[in-house]
């Protein structure tokens, strides 16, 4: 259905709030020139606010709505116990500057999570401060930068990034002041060793890599890769976006990585919240721990006390205010404790099982091509290039048509090295029936493309809104109610 904007539901005089009275009615005058004049917020009662956002929520697809195989995003089920624990007043109602003696529970949780993450990654020390994956990447590359500078190697200003990498990798490296050097992939979909050999030099700061990579392919020459980079004096950065594939089985530290960021919201089942909050802890080998952001969490075995440790002499400083997304941290630890060693291993195995099941069942279907190697880890990237060539139906059309079946689309047009890419990551929490239905839908869309391409090109047909015009949105941006109102008044918009 159509739900008006909250501003359009406003009626003068309605109130939705209650507030305690001031302790004492002291008159305080804001200087006239600073006094607020206009304030066009909507006026609604609480029941109306609740109805409005309840309806909006019903116009949204979440992990509890059905399969959500968005490649590289690890949309696994978010256990409700995470929410229950994070709803404890001991999370919401504590202030970050409280005396450490009054927040021992919080510090203990952060400390414990760090211990888990150390063992999972093979790293020696972690910061939980970064708010999301990209914030973690920035932290990691800043640490690499600080490391080289500290050693006087000011020339190490080049960060190597494979062409299959997430966009955040080059962006984060650039933010840290690095020059980004792209490394091509070979026919297997993995890093081209020769190109890597040619790219490394005394300017190399490091290589950012995710393994398995965004094609879902394990970089089987990771040993060689690490050797090349380390030999050149560079460091190896592990993008944890795909850790779910090897969780509990293989450790980035054992693969030769020096720095790693994790996405608690992907790998450790904390909800994605429609785009955040996430949490992107960064772990490093001992050699880099002096560069971590402050504060770290310490534990004094003698007194049994946890504390915030600001004594990190060469720290890069802070990448976010305070200590990180604590409410997300609580959820992740809850998940880890429930899963335990064997559960984590089984989760990644089933995630890999599901992705390969889908790969095997879909491959050979007319219109879809499976480039690179067959064996995948947590995700698979098909190409709809044949379909596009033969019918004009693009990856985007396939994605939209999937919505008609009540299914969420895969990630499309990424990684960039695959044309008409469909990047599918089912995760371990979907059932065989859901996978079968997804495969069935993709096959059916393939048939539709060859028999009735218009049906697919004009999809979706069964959704609340039809295909959304993003070109129009960019051409004449309408970003806020005040912009919209003004344009509307000027007759420049007819929405």
């Amino acid at each position: 259905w159509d739900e008006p904007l909250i501003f359009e539901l406003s009626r003068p005089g309605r109130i939705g709030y209650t507030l305690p009275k001031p302790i004492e009615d002291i008159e305080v005058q804001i200087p006239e020139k600073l006094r607020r004049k206009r304030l066009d917020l909507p006026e609604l009662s609480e029941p109306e606010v609740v109805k409005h956002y309840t309806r909006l929520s019903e116009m949204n697809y979440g992990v509890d709505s059905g399969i959500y195989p968005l490649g590289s995003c690890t949309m696994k089920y978010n256990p409700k116990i995470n929410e229950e624990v994070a709803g404890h007043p001991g999370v919401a109602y504590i202030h970050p500057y409280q005396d450490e003696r009054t927040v021992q529970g919080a510090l203990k949780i952060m400390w414990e999570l760090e211990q888990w993450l150390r063992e999972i990654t093979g790293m020696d020390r972690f910061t939980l401060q970064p708010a999301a994956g990209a914030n973690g990447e920035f932290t990691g590359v800043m640490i690499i930068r600080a490391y080289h500078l500290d050693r006087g190697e000011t020339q190490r200003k080049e960060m190597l990034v494979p062409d299959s990498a997430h966009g955040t990798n080059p962006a984060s490296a650039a933010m840290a002041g690095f020059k980004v050097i792209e490394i091509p992939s070979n026919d297997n979909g993995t890093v081209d060793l020769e190109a890597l050999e040619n790219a490394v030099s005394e300017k190399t700061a490091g290589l950012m890599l995710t393994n398995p990579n965004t094609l879902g392919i394990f970089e089987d020459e990771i040993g060689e890769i690490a050797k090349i980079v380390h030999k050149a004096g560079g460091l190896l950065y592990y993008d944890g976006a795909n850790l779910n594939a090897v969780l509990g089985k293989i450790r980035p530290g054992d693969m030769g990585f020096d720095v790693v960021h994790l996405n608690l919201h992907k790998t450790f089942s904390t909800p994605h919240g429609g785009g955040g909050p996430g949490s992107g802890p960064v772990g490093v080998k001992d050699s880099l721990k002096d560069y971590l952001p402050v504060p770290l969490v310490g534990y004094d075995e003698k007194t049994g006390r946890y504390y915030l440790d600001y004594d990190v002499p060469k720290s890069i400083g802070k990448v976010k205010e305070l200590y990180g997304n604590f409410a997300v941290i609580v959820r992740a630890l809850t998940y880890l404790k429930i899963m335990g060693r064997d559960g984590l291993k089984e989760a990644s195995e089933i995630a890999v099982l599901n992705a390969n099941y889908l790969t095997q069942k879909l491959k050979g279907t007319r219109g879809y091509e499976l480039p690179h190697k067959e064996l995948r880890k947590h995700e698979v990237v098909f190409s709809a290039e044949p379909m596009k060539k033969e019918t004009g139906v693009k990856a985007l059309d396939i994605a939209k048509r999937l919505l008609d079946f009540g299914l969420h689309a895969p990630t499309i047009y990424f990684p960039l090295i695959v044309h008409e890419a469909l990047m599918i990551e089912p995760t371990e929490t979907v059932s065989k029936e859901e996978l079968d239905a997804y495969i069935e839908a993709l096959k059916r869309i393939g048939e539709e493309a060859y028999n009735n391409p218009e049906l697919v090109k004009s999809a979706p047909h069964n959704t609340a809104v039809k295909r959304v015009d993003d070109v129009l949105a960019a051409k004449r941006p309408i970003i806020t109610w005040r912009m919209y109102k003004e344009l509307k008044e000027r007759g420049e918009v007819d929405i």
Partner: protein
Amino acid sequence: MGRHYLPNSAHRNEMLKDMGFSSIEDLFSDVPKGMVKKFNLPEGKSEYEVFFEMNEALSKNKTVLEMPSFLGAGTYFHYIPAHVKYLIERSEFLTAYTPYQPEISQGMLQALFEYQSLIGELVGLPIVNSSMYDWGTAMAEAALMSARVTRRNKFVVPRNISPEKKMVLHTYVFGAGIEIEYVDWNENGQIDLEKLKEKVEGAAGVYVEMPNFFGLIEEEIQAVGEIAHDAKALFVVGVDPTILGIVEAPGELGADIVVGEAAYFGNPMNFGGPRAGIFAIRDDKKLIRQMPGRIIGMTKDADGKRAFVMTLQTREQHIRRAKATSNICSNEALVAVAAAIHLATLGPKGLRELGETILRNTAYFKKRIGEVAEVVFEGINFKDVPVRFERPYPEIHEALLAKNIHGGYYLKPHFQELGESALFAVTETTRTEWVGALIEVLREVA
């Protein structure tokens, strides 16, 4: 051990057989030998046991509901109406991701458009993104953006901002080689205009906060803007948005960029996170092109019906990669939606009343604390009040804690010149009896 989350755990063999594999290890045959290891981790536990353990740990935290607290300094105990929490916990919001498929994500897209719109009204600017990580990173991104827009490499900042924000700023601008120039405060604790003038030349941007770290309203904020603009620098205002029911919108005061903390609405303290940074700008093509972060726009669907979609994505990392305006990908969408719901609940009257109530409570607090200690600065305080003691503040802190009261934030480590001062804060949630109890103890020990 978590098998209850894994429906296909029961079908491993069946599925493997169907695929022509004989074991899970076949699926890992491309992993170099010896790389797969058995981890040294505890075994999984039942949900009950984990619930019990986590509850036990969290119960060790002393909450503000159990212990009156006067901490502020950038994190405040505001009350969040219950329906806000209820609504953002609806799984359609909670468990979704970035709305890449707008046709089945209109709910989140509209909610974020409404967030942008509400913030737009609040700060008086037409372009707002759908959130940064927090105020600190938003401010740092504003510095980077200012440098990109002006092609200058200096950013001017008053010293009366929080140590947290200073540290974030320094880390963020390091890569871009931007120099941070600090401006002192005057005897009123507000930015010193004369000193600002000395430092403004060649600046990409000038930053000022409302209120500043000492809780003081920057009464000459318009003059700061003029000085910035005169020097062709961008005027960047950081704002605690809970003040905006009573203080003029920064956009109306000349701000080019407004940053701030959206999480003060709709989100509890959470030991400091998650938060959500406000980021808003003037409607200026040059600025828009350089803006960081996700932006939701209104458009039409194929039938001409109103619809919402992520827009202006060509600035972003997934398209521009190394040349993006920021590396941000996941933002703080749900935090922003919570803020929007709270704001929609408050409305204009509620926001004014909130501001008034905090202003009055702060004035009351100043009056009372003035009976037993020294209020450091004159001026109009909002929430935070720096208070100076004769004894070392840590001793006062201990005495208060012993009486189950948490005092303020010790200023001396970061602002030596303020002596044995601490930043005490109140909000609309401060209860009369808390202040009474505080003053009573201070009478004895201060």
